[in-house]
């Protein structure tokens, strides 16, 4: 059976989309949305990315060292798919972190929704907005990094 990158794209996108829907419903199911959207789905996508790189990296051209080489890399449809799965996995992982952090810091979920939507559509923009909201809320207080005391 021949590998079909287009079908794999559809499957990966559907899996990631279900992860985002779970995050939007996370106030109703805080634990399971984290288990699935924060761990299981990103790891499943990561395994798929890993398989794509193992199977197709050596056949690709280009590299990471210049924009032309990155463009050459993505001329391979399978590596283009790998790049997309990379986005899907990491964006969802960041989205789950936003939902988790907002819950711990008692940030109203209505503020988190636009961050999740922007992270889904434009990754770093959502992260910027979420960080801006956090900084605005705690301006004047000591900054605490996750897991570390200030």
């Amino acid at each position, binding site marked *: 059976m*021949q*590998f079909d990158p287009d079908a*794999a794209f559809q499957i990966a996108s559907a899996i990631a989309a279900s992860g985002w829907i779970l995050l939007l419903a996370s106030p109703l199911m805080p634990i399971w949305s984290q288990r699935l959207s924060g761990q299981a789905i990103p790891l499943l996508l990561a*395994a*798929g990315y*890993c*398989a*794509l*790189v*193992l*199977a*197709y*990296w*050596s*056949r690709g051209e280009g590299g990471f060292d210049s924009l032309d080489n990155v463009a050459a890399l993505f001329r391979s449809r*399978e590596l283009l798919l790998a790049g997309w799965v990379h986005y899907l996995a990491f964006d969802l992982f960041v989205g789950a972190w936003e939902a988790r952090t907002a819950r711990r810091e008692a940030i109203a979920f209505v503020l988190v929704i636009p961050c999740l939507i922007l992270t889904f559509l434009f990754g770093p923009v959502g992260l910027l907005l979420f960080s801006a909201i956090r900084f605005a809320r705690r301006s004047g207080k000591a900054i605490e990094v996750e897991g570390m005391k200030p």
Partner: protein
Amino acid sequence: MSVQGLAQSRPSSSRSGNWPDSISAMRADEPRFFGAGVLLVFMLVPITLAMAIDDRIFNGINVWDKPLKFEIALIVYLFTLAYFARWLPGGMLKSRRYRVFSWVVVSSVALEMIWIAGAAANGTGSHFNVSTPFMAAVYPLMGLLAVTLTSASLVYAIAIHRNRAAGLDPAFRLSLVLGLGMTFVLTVVVAGTMSGMPGHWVGGVPSDQGGMAGMGWARDGGDLRVAHFFATHCLHLVPLAGYVASRHLGSIAAMRSVVAAAIVVGSLVLFTYVQALLGMPFLPVIGGLNG
């Protein structure tokens, strides 16, 4: 004292969580071998997925067939040693010298796996591959690492032989010592013979297509992988016989049975070794999966 009784005589402090006792004991006794085994189990997922999406063929079959087989074999080996670690002297497991050795073994396993999977990712061979200066330079190094990781079975054989304090049934202990020792000696002999040849096939078509179901062994000529398989599995076959004998026979009969089992298994290795070198297939009647 029965084998089972011994496994249960461990302090309960080494147990944890919801895991069955025997698995918790493996992790407590040999955390490096156990952890490396679990890591390899997780890595089965991307390797299997890669196999499903890769259309490249090497030696007539999917390029990922070989890394998958080696990964499964290394998982079985690491978990077996982690299980046997309960019969090593307690002080030895804690000693610095042993922990360094154990890390060297785990590192050898990791490098071997990276070499084999890396070659597959590049659509080429690992063992017997001297097609580029780099691969030709790496191949003997990997042979050295393979001997290093196999030497753990010899170290275990000697340590279990010396560990009278384990209170093991003498017949079962003898079976562990013989099985582990045979795994090292016979594997090194068979694999050493292979590495001195251009490949593991003797006569026949040098392809895995149409090989024996499940194992891929040649059905149209000799294949030294058969003897390698039985040599490496001595550490399972002989102790299995020792376990059964120690439970059901008197002490002298059990000892004799263990020696007999070791001779039978050793003969099987010798038989398959000579058979392959003569260019004869092992069990050609067992059909191929792919033609």
